């Protein structure tokens, strides 16, 4: 009996630990500025106020738009390229294709910093530095390892006979992909798109280094800069954080199952 009580107390402590930031986030973002002060931080707001949200939205709206403009093309492009990659690496084995795949996978673990500076020079050379398109290109390339991995695992369960039958019927590599594999790839695409959407939305380092113009920065960068001024209006800050988290949260709440699949694909290796 005492054992049960101890277990429940422990569980309650952990639950509080995980819920506390969410409570603070919600409570603070709904407070009017004068209630945000020092002493009342742990109490729920006396008067609900949407001032924080209104202010945060008016300041972050352009960046929110940027984030969508960045995330949607980058996600779709990296999903499509990853799917073709996965097809080639699982069904059209060639010499050293496994080694190539291992090298691609290593890209998933590379610290972004180690390529950051050459990357910026390259973007400057091709004239995309500082633009959203440059950022899209970076994210498409950096999304390839994980999208390739997920699609390779997905396609390796497709019977090879299907591919052979198509090639006997005279379909080339691309036609086989388009007519045979692409139509059955929807579950793979769902996992990849959700994973990439979340990751690109949340990414910060590339965003802050590639785009320096505040009007072109995605929301994660704008959120950090929001706190940069002298007096931090914490209710605006928390409302901004909630705004920045909302799209991924919605995706996670609605389609969490697929997000978890992407998460596990990243760890339960090739």
């Amino acid at each position, binding site marked *: 009996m005492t054992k049960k009580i101890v277990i429940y107390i422990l569980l309650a402590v952990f639950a509080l630990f995980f819920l506390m930031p969410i409570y603070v986030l919600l409570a603070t973002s709904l407070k009017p500025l004068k209630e945000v002060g020092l002493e009342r931080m742990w109490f729920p707001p006396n008067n609900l106020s949407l001032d924080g949200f209104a202010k945060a939205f008016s300041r972050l709206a352009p960046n929110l738009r940027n984030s969508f403009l960045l995330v949607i093309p980058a996600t779709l492009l990296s999903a499509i390229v990853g799917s073709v990659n996965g097809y080639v690496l699982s069904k059209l084995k060639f010499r050293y294709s496994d080694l190539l795949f291992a090298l691609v996978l290593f890209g998933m673990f590379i610290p972004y910093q180690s390529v950051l500076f050459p990357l910026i020079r390259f973007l400057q050379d091709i004239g995309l530095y500082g633009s959203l398109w440059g950022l899209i290109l970076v994210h498409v390339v950096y999304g390839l390892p994980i999208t390739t991995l997920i699609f390779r695992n997905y396609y390796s369960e497709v019977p090879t006979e299907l591919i052979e039958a198509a090639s006997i019927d005279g379909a080339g590599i691309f036609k086989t992909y388009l007519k045979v594999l692409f139509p059955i790839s929807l579950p793979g695409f769902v996992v990849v798109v959700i994973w990439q959407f979340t990751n690109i939305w949340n990414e910060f380092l590339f965003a802050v280094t590639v785009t320096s113009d505040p009007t072109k920065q995605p929301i994660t960068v704008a959120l*950090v800069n929001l706190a940069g001024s002298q007096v931090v209006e914490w209710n605006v800050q928390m409302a901004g*954080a909630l705004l920045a988290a909302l799209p991924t949260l919605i995706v996670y709440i609605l389609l969490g199952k697929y997000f978890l699949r992407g998460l596990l694909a990243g*760890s*339960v*290796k090739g």
Partner: protein
Amino acid sequence: MALSFVVTGAVWRWIFAPGILPNSPQGMNLLLNLVGLDFFQWKWFTSTESFLNFNIALIPVIIAAVWQMSGYTMAMYLAGLRGISQDLVEAAEVDGATGWQIFWKIKFPILRPITLSAMIILGHISLKIFDLVYAMTGSGPNNVTDVPAIYMFETTFRANKYATGSAIAIIMLLMVAVVIIPYLASAFRKEKRI
């Protein structure tokens, strides 16, 4: 993991904002006051003190990182636990094993590959962690919360020392490679065997 490190950082920065000690504590210090632990107050990430050679300022960062990343491990273990055959557990129960024994003697050893994966994945994420620390503290007073990624960023983009910045980045790459390459190699060998 669905949340951005930047968002987590912003929230925890607010929670651990120290206030002006000792008269007007804020955030975590205030909470400690309310539950009667008022002697246990720190300046958290604005502190330059260290305890047993460990920077106090890092504690909030570690707590935030744990909060953010433990969901990942939970998902991995959950997937692993679901894969354990119920027969094993029943057999152990017949043999009179307690719940504690079943976990430590049966389930945990079966899940050892997952433990390894979790350590390596979270380890390499922590090695290159940037957004969280940047959003919470930056390099902190006296560089107490300086991590390689922040150091690299500041050297390259604040001080414009590109060469030094690149060198730091390469060292980070090596640190990650030391952890990751054996892991990938063993994963591939296992796949070949199947």
